[in-house]
């Protein structure tokens, strides 16, 4: 692997930047503008009162509000939400999605739903074969959480067993617990943590490049599903 720029190149580059920035009366180490956190929270919800109601982490009523807001915003972004694995497998079967991938950690959950009387006959693998990527009609992976304000699902390298499993199949199911739903974009930014790669997914992959007409499922999933269940390992 080739390394970054050498010291001399770097020094020349930064000399130009410093010269361009020029003299300042006072070097200001920290921004003087308004705090972005309070602003984003209040402005984004049209009012501080509602912002507080959504954000109060310990309050069970606030948790319910976050869940309700998440569902509403996810659906308005053309995503779908399930709280019952049985209903999910029935829906998958109705879509004709009879084979897919499931994160090994979630396999017991899926297997239990498929073992119940009357459950449809779906099959799944817990190992993703890249060479057969188009054989997987659905991919079920864990998510790092969600954002109520925008109906967004949060994936990262730590929770999502395979990046490709959450991307290549037509249907992606992200599994997380209600407690993992952040109130606002700004809260999710604060929770980025140490993961090298975090991706927020807000509804299915889409384009409007052809005459401004909305088409879903361009390169990523055409269906973005949230399965919100209390116990996720």
């Amino acid at each position, binding site marked *: *692997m*080739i390394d*970054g*720029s050498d010291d001399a190149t770097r020094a020349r*580059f*930064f000399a*130009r*930047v410093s*010269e*361009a*920035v020029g003299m*300042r009366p006072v070097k*200001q*180490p920290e*921004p*003087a*503008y*308004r705090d*972005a*956190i309070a*602003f*984003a929270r209040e*402005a*984004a919800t049209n009012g501080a009162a509602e912002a507080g109601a959504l954000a109060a982490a310990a309050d069970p009523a606030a948790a319910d509000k976050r869940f309700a807001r998440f569902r509403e*915003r996810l659906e308005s972004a053309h995503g779908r939400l399930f709280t019952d694995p049985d209903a999910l497998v029935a829906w998958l079967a109705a879509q004709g999605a009879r084979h897919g991938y499931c994160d090994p950690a979630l396999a017991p959950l899926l297997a239990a739903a498929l073992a119940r009387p009357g459950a449809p006959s779906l099959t799944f693998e817990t190992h993703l074969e*890249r060479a057969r990527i188009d054989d997987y009609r659905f991919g079920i992976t864990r998510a790092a959480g969600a954002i109520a*304000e*925008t109906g967004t699902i949060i994936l990262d*390298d*730590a929770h999502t067993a395979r*990046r*490709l499993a959450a*991307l290549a199949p037509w249907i992606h199911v992200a599994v997380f617990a209600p407690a993992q739903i952040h109130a606002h*974009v*700004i809260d999710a*930014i*604060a929770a*980025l943590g140490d*993961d*090298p*790669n*975090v*991706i*927020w*997914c*807000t509804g*299915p*992959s*889409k*384009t*409007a*490049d*052809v*005459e*401004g*007409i909305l*088409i879903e499922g*361009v*390169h*990523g999933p055409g269906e973005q599903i949230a399965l919100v269940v209390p116990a996720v390992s």
Partner: protein
Amino acid sequence: MSTHPGGHAPDAVDLFAAAQGEERHAAVRLGSKAGHEKRTEILNRDYADPDDLRRLAGAIKQHALDHLDVYLPRAEAQLRAHGARVHFATDAAEARERVLAIMRARGALRVVKAKSMVTEEIELGPFLAHHGIESIETDLGEFIVQIDDDHPSHIVKPIIHKNRREIANSLERYGLGPYDDTPEVITRRARAYLRNKYLTADAGITGANFVSAESGRLVLVTNEGNSRFCLAATGCHVALVGIEKIVPRDRDLGVLLNVLARSATGQQLSVYTEFMRGPRAPAQPDGHEEMHVIFLDNGRTGVLGSEYREILRCIRCGACLNVCPVYRQASGHAYRSVYSGPVGAVLSPLLAGGDFATLADLPKASSLCGACNEVCPVDIPIPDLLLRLRDRAQQTKDVAGEASAAASAGTSMTAWAEVATRPWAWKGALATGGLVNHLPQALRPKPLRVWGQSHVQPPWRGGAFRKWFAQRSRS
């Protein structure tokens, strides 16, 4: 930055428009209008005072620019600490060589690319092709542009100038199935073709919308999921980033992401917002084990050190294009550079450096109506900057020569600009415009004549606003 070679050079905007035909005019007009309406609706739905949001976003970007000598090294240190290799490229040639060296070191022969204005700016795709590396654009619009050997005509919607029939023809010509202009079929065919490209590529190249100095995170937004595929399917990620993309802290992203998607496409958030620093986690089987970030100057420090610094706040949302009456009429290609519309009229001549004169007519292609400033998510005073640039163009002797040469050859925006920049000429044009309704085709000014060959000219209705305004002022 070089301007587009050949092709458009000797054509006046009017001639250019005539060659495009009414279908293209309609496509650009409708596309930009719809974009503007969606933007306005969602900002007013979600914010009691959208201007407050724009001012804060502008203050964040301005602060970052004013202290770029502090924030850029911070971002660099964070990226290095998280395993990314950081490169600095003074100009386009250095950036291209850097990419090539990375590819050669990996033995990479196939590259998938996400949409990136900076890679357009340095003309990376043709360069890689010249060196035997296949480089495929994966954004649907950019892919069509690539197979048509065309140029993007809008910062966010690269094929705003094409209708579905042209796109269907392009796919058929490229061998992706028989003609079918259903947008869904077009999209599915591109999905199948590009999926194979991702899975067989050796590296993925992207830009970045923002870089946080605090954490080193690059932020990239897309709707299609193509940049995610570039990072999930290949072993090497190369990000090309203009130095103006730095923001001070992660929390500032909360403001900028909220304003970017709403301004660009009328969404709360784009479908995919990806935060990247360093190679994939060790336990993650998919994606890049190698990450390179190339910070690009290419004329930006020149702009940073000038009275035009504010233009570097731009977050490439395209809102000023959508609202601009000149852009709507002329379309993006008329600006003869990567950045079109009002922002391009400022940025393109500045980034052209020594070739300023070749694009010095662009700042004149504005009626200074101020709409670009009103919609700008980072509150850039574009009309002020255009005026300053016009002064600079006047003061530059060789520019005057260039401009008059251009005018006599009937090129560029000059004729339009001459009228738009002089109130008396504008009034005169409005007052006498009605005469055109009665002129026989052969006696019309040449650009209009050419235009008339492919158009039914609508009756002249200009001047009504000025009349109304004069009466209103009197009463």
